[in-house]
């Protein structure tokens, strides 16, 4: 730098530390998020089974409810909870959830998902706080 010219110095050590924290979080987050999603799926499955248990005409249906393997990428972790149509009485899902013009519904999947939503949101908040130092 030429003598007499003004100069500016930037202290970027906090920015560098933040970058490292974000990189670390990005590495950890997918696997940790998958655990949270799996836990939520288990809770929804169990709750849905409980809500729809005891029906005389659909004794096997609750056992058809399960969830897919959790798919994880760098931007999402997802699964689907619901009845497996290949399992015994699994095809009754729509009829039970919504009812028919002749039979009332037995809402179980929707309410179970709604009941889990606040717990899931809280768990994700806690995960974010855990992997990103304050």
């Amino acid at each position, binding site marked *: 730098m030429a003598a007499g010219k003004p100069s500016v110095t930037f202290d970027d050590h906090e920015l560098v530390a933040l970058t490292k924290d974000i990189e670390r979080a990005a590495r950890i987050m997918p696997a940790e998020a998958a655990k949270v999603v799996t836990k939520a799926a288990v809770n929804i499955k169990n709750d849905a089974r409980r809500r729809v248990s005891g029906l005389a005409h659909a004794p096997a249906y609750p056992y058809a409810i399960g969830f897919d393997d959790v798919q994880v990428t760098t931007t999402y972790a997802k699964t689907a909870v619901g009845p497996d149509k290949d399992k015994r009485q699994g095809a009754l899902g*729509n*009829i039970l959830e*919504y*009812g*028919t*013009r*002749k*039979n*009332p*519904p037995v*809402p179980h999947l*929707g*309410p179970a998902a*709604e*009941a889990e*939503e*606040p*717990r899931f949101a809280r768990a994700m908040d806690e995960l974010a706080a855990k992997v990103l130092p304050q």
Partner: protein
Amino acid sequence: MSTLQDHADAVLSLLRADAALTVYDGMVTGTADHYVIVYTFRQLPGGDAAPDKTPLTGDTTTVDMRFYCHCVGVDGVAARAVQARVQAALLDATPAVTGRACFPIRWVEGTQVLRDEETLSPVFDAVDVYGLTSVPG
């Protein structure tokens, strides 16, 4: 009269205000070939599920009702016509329930028009689920 019944009455009244719409409450009791049959489902969300509507005492005061509206007709056109009338009557309407402050009715979920799976008869049914939430007021 129970709060549950009050909520049901308020929504059924909105539907019955449409003279061209045949409305059944939980059971088909007539011979109309196109109609809406309504099933109700009640939830009582506590502080976890409805923190913004729960008082600091923690008392459960929120009522969250779901109305499963089966819109039935002899073909897809008729079922969709019933569906449209139900939508016109309920969507975003704010019913009056004594002692309660109601939020506008919202569409929650639904199905496409399907032929009756139970009897495989020429009857078509589309389901729309509407939600009504209220708090004391």
